[in-house]
């Protein structure tokens, strides 16, 4: 008898969308259950858009957006957000850059003012640029150079899978490129990419929709209109032969390996893409998943294994080309060839025999929990819906995801597994230079 499946619940946050005359798209997601708001502005420019010789520039520029703007001195942004009881940050992704705040709801107008002010123009000065180059270098040292497995695999696998600069280069940037960045570069970058027509504003939480519309028009309505630049085509052909590379990490005590396979276009071919998102979880979500059971517990070939979509780990905020990744850390002296062979074997088995009774349903139920949990945070809703609006014109997809994930079939997961062939695989191996 087939196992009864848990009903996958949904949340329906009401969503309002509109576009200002200057081209700024706006998404409102009211929810008055707690007196807090999330505000997100997402610009359609990321790591893939930075020019050769300027690796790391999208991220460096993100830092510069916090260094003062038309009406705000350096440090003012931070003080105004935190002095209103809120928190802020920004982050740079492959295809977009986001800026966001979570605040008590009485600070709505202040947050809109702050975001509109820097959308009109950040204060780009030589002094701020040099200061933030230093800060970013320390960020890279903390996250990459001074720790084991720094940048593994999000910085070290793309150059194996991809050939073109936009897809393959180091998004944190080389120190040389960062140091040679100029204020004129920053001004050009802002002019080109930080256009009102290239941005989405999302506000979620304890708002009155009509009041929010009035305030948004008041603060963003006179941001000068500039159109979105044409987005270049970043397409690359799929691999036709396996690629594999390795490097020594002097700090790493244990070997590790990560592999990537190209997947269908997440935006234009969402129906074909979604089964891969489910597949990654079938393979690696928890002790009952296939690869954890086999590689960690039965074979003891790895100490951990993880699988996910997209180099930065969020399956629904990236455009083509992207990949499914599997990464493993091995015990001392672990055999990487054997791990890769076992993964192939398990993928074959899945493609040939299909899923066991209840395996898909329980994976989908767990995925629903993860998706719902992310949307519980008021800022999570604003950020994710802003990106969905930007990349798909469909912010409401966020609420549909648990159901859509739940509709993926056994047959689709098998078919997805069947495409993860060794000849389409790019792998990077970490040699444990710090092994004792």
């Amino acid at each position, binding site marked *: 008898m087939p196992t009864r499946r*848990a009903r996958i619940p949904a949340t329906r946050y009401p969503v309002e969308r509109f576009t200002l005359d200057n081209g700024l798209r706006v998404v409102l997601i009211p929810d008055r259950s707690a007196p807090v708001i999330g505000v997100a502005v997402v610009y359609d420019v990321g790591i893939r858009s930075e020019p050769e010789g300027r690796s790391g520039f999208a991220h460096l520029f993100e830092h510069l957006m916090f260094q003062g703007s038309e009406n705000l001195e350096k440090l003012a942004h931070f003080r105004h957000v935190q002095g*209103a009881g809120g928190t802020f940050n920004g982050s740079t992704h492959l295809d977009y850059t986001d800026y966001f705040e979570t605040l008590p709801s009485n600070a709505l107008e202040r947050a809109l003012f702050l975001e509109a002010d820097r959308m009109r123009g950040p204060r780009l000065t030589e002094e701020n640029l040099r200061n933030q180059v230093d800060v970013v270098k320390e960020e890279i040292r903390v996250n990459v150079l001074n720790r084991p497995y720094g940048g593994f695999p999000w910085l070290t696998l793309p150059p194996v899978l991809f050939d073109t600069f936009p897809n393959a280069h180091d998004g944190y940037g080389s120190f040389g490129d960062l140091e040679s960045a100029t204020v004129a570069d920053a001004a050009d970058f802002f002019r080109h990419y930080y256009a009102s027509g290239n941005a989405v504003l999302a506000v979620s939480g304890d708002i009155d929709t009509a009041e929010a519309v009035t305030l948004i028009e008041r603060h963003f309505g006179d941001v000068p209109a500039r159109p979105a630049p044409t987005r270049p085509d970043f397409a690359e052909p799929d691999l036709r032969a396996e690629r594999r590379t390795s490097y020594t990490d002097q700090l790493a005590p244990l070997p590790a390996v990560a592999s990537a396979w190209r997947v269908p276009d997440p935006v234009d071919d969402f129906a074909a893409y979604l089964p891969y998102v489910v597949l990654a979880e079938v393979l690696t979500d928890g002790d009952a998943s296939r690869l954890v059971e086999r590689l960690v517990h039965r074979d003891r070939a790895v100490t951990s294994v993880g699988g996910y979509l997209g180099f930065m780990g969020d399956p629904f905020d990236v455009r083509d080309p992207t990949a499914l990744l599997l990464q493993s850390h091995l015990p001392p002296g672990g055999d990487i060839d054997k791990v890769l062979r076992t993964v192939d074997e398990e993928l074959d088995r899945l493609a040939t025999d299909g899923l066991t009774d209840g395996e898909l349903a329980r994976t989908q139920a767990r995925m629903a929990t993860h998706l719902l949990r992310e949307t519980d945070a008021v800022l999570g809703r604003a950020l994710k819906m802003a990106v969905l609006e930007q990349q798909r014109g469909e912010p409401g997809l966020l609420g549909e995801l648990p159901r859509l994930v739940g509709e993926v079939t056994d047959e689709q997961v098998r078919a997805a597994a069947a495409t993860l062939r060794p000849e389409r695989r790019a792998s990077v191996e970490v040699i444990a230079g710090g092994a004792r």
Partner: protein
Amino acid sequence: MSARSEPGLLTAPATPRPLPPLGPTRRLKVPRQTERTLDSGLTVIVVRRPAVPLVELRLWMPFGQAQLARGHLLAQTLLSGTETMSSVQIAAELQRIGGGLSAGLDPDRLMISGAGLATGLDRMLEILGEVLTGASYPAKWVAVERDRLVDGIQVARSQPAHLARTALLKRIYGRHPYAVQTPNPEQVSAVRPAALRTLHAQRVHPAGAVLVLVGDVRPERALDAAEKALDGWNGAGHTADLPPAPPLEPGPLLLVDRPGSVQSSMRLALPAVPRTHPDHAALQLANLIFGGYFSSRWVENIREDKGYTYGPHSVVQHSVAGSVLLAAAEVATEVTAPALVETTYELGRLATVPPTSEELEQARQYALGTLQLGISTQAGLASFVSAYAGSGLRLDFLPEYAARLAKASAADVAEAAARYLAPSRAVTVVLGDAERISASLATLAPIDTVPVPS
């Protein structure tokens, strides 16, 4: 496009736009909790927050003084099987209700946490009950998890943040049980399943334990479900009181030599007080002004002015045996000593000169606002309620704490800073490349240099 000037090259606006004022302050909205103490001694606290159709679970039990390697391996294998269920079955059954549980250990407590679909609460509690009463620590799984734990410790030991913390704990706590919080691989390798079963029998008990459930649940129903599912979990078992943490003993700067480091990990420990102490609110505000948030003196100085570091941060940490203020920054090797100079300067300035009223109001608003933000998700609320319960507090303390934050004066904050943030009271540890930093550090303070533990 603006006719005034090129975007991106603006220096000042033609017509300044004023910063909009904040709307009326919203009163702190604290959710209602329901609580029941079971005959077994387990306290169950339920908070209804139906934002998403999920439920969050936190269960902690006192676990101080447990043998370190056994305790950590117990946490890692608690969900590895029972008489009737294998590890895979436990994981699969939890997945079926969109759930997952994991266990972790700190020097005070064993903590089980997880989340799942609200409709699966009864089943999640049933599985939890089965694990608590019948975890069997199967030899095969223990062997696997033992190796994984050893590997995990090896990886941790290659991370500067872990090494700096290890050195700092040892320096602060001396012979107190808090001094060592990560077991040696050799100790872990020696643990047998029988030792885990014994430890479980001695320490995994409901007396003094707290279960928190937050989410889309009806409180009375959830309490009943917990009572029913955990009915068989009984026995007072063994308890162990922790001695109070020793006072900080300032002394020479401890330099942990990690050759080849491209950054130095700077750590300072300062005295602090528990959540209920009358000085606590003023101390929190003093900490914010010093380094507890981005708009603090320390961050504005060593990051935004000087570019020495990416993310300096200071925080007051509460444990059963005592509280401590910890400040941490990863700084470029060549500016290690200058960064310490600025750190000591900012501590000393706050300890000797009262903060301005703007600084204080900004920190106060941040402290009050982030209280509300922190409890606005199910997960955040569950962790908050659980941590509060760890200090013997309930959500009803929150408005009182907010009131203390609201009325702390500049004089109160200055007094707290003088008492707790004085640099003369700091214990300082720096992990970095001694060959490159010890000479300049030695110009600031006496230094003890030790090699990084291998």
